[in-house]
């Protein structure tokens, strides 16, 4: 079973040289730490920055340099600043190659729910609806089951949707799965020490298992 860092490490392997990537809050943010050193990747922060760097050293924080999670960050050489309209313009125009974000639920047809729980205080969708509606390639980083032990990979989402037919890949503590264009979670890899049966038991939506499922290499 993977921990959060493990999920981030596995997702980092999906990033290719030359990619522009938008990382959501939570596990996706950790992915930045595991991007291979031999590829060039530019991180987009939707508040208006391309070229997000690591956190600043103590004492070097600048209130005017933050990411979409409102964290103080740095800018790498070759960074560019732009306003919020252009930021979402480039997202809508599919210039961002990969979006990685968390989810509460994903359905077998790629719908995602990650912004609202009825009865609880709703904080808002931020940029998530824009990102999932436009991104060509969306990877969801999340736990396979919720705190109540219920699967988050469902035939149909039960929570209010953030977007429809958009998730392409899911990485959880148990597995890597593709969401097929015609529907269904295709199991690609097992987490170290996790059996196919364990994944079956944790997946409520249609799970497609073909041939041997390799253990993932991180």
């Amino acid at each position, binding site marked *: 079973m993977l921990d959060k860092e493990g999920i981030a490490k596995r997702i980092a392997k999906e990033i290719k040289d030359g990619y522009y990537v938008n990382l959501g809050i939570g596990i996706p943010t950790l992915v930045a*730490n595991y991007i291979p050193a031999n590829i060039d990747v530019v991180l987009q*922060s*939707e*508040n*208006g*920055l391309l070229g997000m760097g*690591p*956190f*600043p*050293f*103590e004492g*070097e*924080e*600048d*209130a*005017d*340099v*933050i*990411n979409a*999670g*409102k*964290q*103080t*960050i740095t*800018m790498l050489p070759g960074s560019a*600043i*732009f*306003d*919020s*309209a252009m*930021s*979402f*313009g480039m*997202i*809508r125009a599919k210039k961002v190659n990969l979006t990685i974000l968390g989810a509460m639920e994903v359905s077998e047809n790629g*719908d995602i729910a990650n912004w609202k729980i009825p009865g609880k*205080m*709703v*904080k*808002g*969708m*931020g*940029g*998530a*609806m*824009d990102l999932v*509606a*436009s991104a060509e390639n969306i990877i969801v980083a999340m736990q396979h089951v919720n705190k109540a032990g219920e699967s988050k990979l469902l035939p149909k989402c039960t929570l*209010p*949707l*953030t*977007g*429809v*037919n958009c998730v392409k890949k899911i990485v959880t503590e148990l597995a890597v799965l593709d969401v097929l264009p015609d529907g269904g979670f295709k199991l690609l890899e097992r987490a170290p020490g996790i059996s196919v049966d364990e994944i079956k038991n944790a997946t409520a939506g249609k799970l497609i298992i073909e041939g041997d499922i390799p253990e993932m290499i991180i």
Partner: protein
Amino acid sequence: MNKVVSDADEAIRDIEDGMTLMLGGFGLCGLPENCIAALVKKGTKELTCISNNAGVDDFGIGLMLKQRQVKKMISSYVGENAEFERQLLSGELDVELIPQGTLATRCMAAGYGMPAIFTPAGIGTEVAIGKEVRNFNGKDYLMELAFDADFAIVKAWKGDTMGNLVYKATARNFNAVMAMAGKITIAEVEELVEPGELDPDHIHTPGIYIHRIFQGVNYEKRIEQRTVRKNVR
């Protein structure tokens, strides 16, 4: 070309109860701190505020919420604010949550004289309820209307007396789009300079969009999430 006002009080003098305001900034970054303080002092009420966030309890729009000056917030994300939550749950405050890109683009539409724009954000979700859906090239889009704000209030790093503005780093965010979108736009700047001191090629908001400008004082520039590196990567 008399755009310079003495301070925030003069800049917001004719903002009245019930008006719709745009307020620049993202999180606590790039907030028009002086104008918010002046609005709190003036006590203007029943405001509709278009702003990506609602500040925190004791900073940003949170200060106006605390005084019950806000009737409605139009935002994309309103976490980190306990008083906000209390007013929302008690029904004192109305909130319209809209996707961040839709928020930004509806501001831009106002500044660019476009009555409506199309975006796929929100298709298939509750955001789409009651809105026109239109298919272009096989993909569905929502039609979203340009905002109509009585005032836009933005904060820039530098500005000249003709209203030309330059923002610093990610404090540009919504400031640059809202600056174009107010019927009247007020800009507060950290440094007010004379015409010619800003490079024409480096101006982010041309002065034509700005109606009032002043040099602000005592910027706190609070950091919402102070994150630092423990060691070198």
